[in-house]
């Protein structure tokens, strides 16, 4: 058997580790247009403020490819999948034959058409290690930086660079920050804490036009800057599968074993859609844990273990300047709110299930809430009043606790 993986991040590593659980012998080839050893993309902001370095941000040890008998083809781009002859075509004209293929091509920054953007000298996106290094190379202690986008990527970028620059403004068309993971109260709390560190927000507005170092905003104001970072969103890299005739909606369509509609071809990670069990809808869940688990599911299935990936939920753990938040699930349902200044918690219930939660500040034991969502635990089977107060195993029945903590099967 000949396994080929396009991509070299979490989904790819999950797939390799999944394959090697069952098959220690067959060849695995990894193709990536990035030259780097597998590294953690979400760590690029930590790299910029010195919490990690290029050595420590490797997602797996240096010996990973060797230990797992993987042949890496790095710095080459896969440009086409020839499904008829089962080959991946590379940008240097070479072909890599496969029996089973994982497409883990991830996503790319979305740069919307903006008038005058070509007149901006220092403009960056913030997704890859090379992006981060390029941005870092132009920053000085006097730089005025404008970040377009107050989502996860834009704000992590802000945290990463604030200490090394002069001033930082973040604009977003939305009227609040992090709308994809927080409710209004949460957005307000986190915005305030980030503002206290010296970041200026201009919300509910966007750049109507750029002219060199000036951005004219739709609200009539003008922002002058030296460096521009565009972080308005990402788009999945679905082209290889689409052009090969595979089913693609917003992301690549896969089944519970991460198979695409094309024979022998699997897909995992930010380029795919997942089935969000909290909303019962298919959507892109561009999250590292999701990517790993999809990749692992694919790797296991390629090698004969049918272990479905059917518990996907949106979830994020993130912090800005030491202020932490954990969120999961969806927020349509009955809300219970606990707030005491620094700390905020919101739980969402519907149909006897916990559907989602937000914890800001105190994030202790959040995983117990995540479990209730992921395992769709009926709330009338536990002491929900106890668990509402704080996440605790006490809320489960004695029999359950014996299983969880006593090794009773």
């Amino acid at each position: 058997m000949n396994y080929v993986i396009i991509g070299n991040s979490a989904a790819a590593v999950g797939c390799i580790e999944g394959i090697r659980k069952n098959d220690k012998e067959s060849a695995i080839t990894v193709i990536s247009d990035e030259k780097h050893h597998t590294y953690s993309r979400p760590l690029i902001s930590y790299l910029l403020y010195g919490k990690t370095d290029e050595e420590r941000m490797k997602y797996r040890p240096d010996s990973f490819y060797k230990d797992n008998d993987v042949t890496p083809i790095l710095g080459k781009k896969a440009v086409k999948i020839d499904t008829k002859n089962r080959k991946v075509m590379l940008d240097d004209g070479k072909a890599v034959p496969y029996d089973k293929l994982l497409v883990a091509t991830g996503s790319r920054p979305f740069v919307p058409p903006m008038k005058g953007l070509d007149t901006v000298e220092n403009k960056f996106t913030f997704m890859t290690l090379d992006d981060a290094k390029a941005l870092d190379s132009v920053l000085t202690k006097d730089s005025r930086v404008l970040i377009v986008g107050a989502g996860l990527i834009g704000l992590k970028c802000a945290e990463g660079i604030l200490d090394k620059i002069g001033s930082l403004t973040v604009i977003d068309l939305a009227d609040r920050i992090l709308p994809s993971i927080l409710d209004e109260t949460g957005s307000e709390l986190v915005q305030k804490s980030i503002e206290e560190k010296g970041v200026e927000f201009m919300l509910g507005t966007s750049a109507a036009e750029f002219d060199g170092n000036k951005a004219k905003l739709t609200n009539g104001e003008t922002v002058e800057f030296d460096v521009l970072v565009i972080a308005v969103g990402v788009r999945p890299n679905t082209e290889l599968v689409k052009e090969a005739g595979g089913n693609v909606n917003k992301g690549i369509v896969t089944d519970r074993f991460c198979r695409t509609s094309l024979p022998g071809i699997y897909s995992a990670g930010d380029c795919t859609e997942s089935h969000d069990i909290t909303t019962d809808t298919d959507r892109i869940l561009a999250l590292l844990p999701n990517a790993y688990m999809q990749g692992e599911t694919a790797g296991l299935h390629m090698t004969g273990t049918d272990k479905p990936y059917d518990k996907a939920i949106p979830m994020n753990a993130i912090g800005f300047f030491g202020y932490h938040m954990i969120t999961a699930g969806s927020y349509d349902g009955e809300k219970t709110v606990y707030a005491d200044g620094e700390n905020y918690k919101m739980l969402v219930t519907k149909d006897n299930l916990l559907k989602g939660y937000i914890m800001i500040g105190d994030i202790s034991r959040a995983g117990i809430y995540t479990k209730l969502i992921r395992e769709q635990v009926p709330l009338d089977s536990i002491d929900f009043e106890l668990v509402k107060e704080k996440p605790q195993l006490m809320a489960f029945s004695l029999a359950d606790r014996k299983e969880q903590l006593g090794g009773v099967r």
Partner: protein
Amino acid sequence: MKRIFVNEEWCLGCHLCEYNCAFANTVSAGKSKANEMAKALKGKKIFPKIQVEENDGIYFAVSCRHCTDPLCVKGCIAGALSVKDGVIEIDQDKCVGCYTCVLSCPYGAIMPAEDGHVAQKCELCTRNSCGSPACVAGCPNNAIVFEER
């Protein structure tokens, strides 16, 4: 593999396991004098990797279950969590303190470390001077045990 198991019917909620855990990971751990633990921990807020839950006369201690299919390891964005000989270890040098593991752990058994910058978890005292779980060794009631089940 041997794991820590809980016999909650024997737990008095004395929190000694928490103190033994906190002490096991201090510099003076391993010294045998009875008052060393008090010297090290007296008057300090402790950050144990095992935590006692209590409610209405019920007590039990919770620490990492060392799952065979660990969500924390799979979810770690930094590759800082790994499984070595069945023990889930954390490389705090790689950890950036995003707490995706806190989000992932169904037992609530991973927590921010004392400095608030990285996560910490029970490693069965395999990486401190104790060599086997200090919480279990110090439990007077067999409310936590270290064994194969």
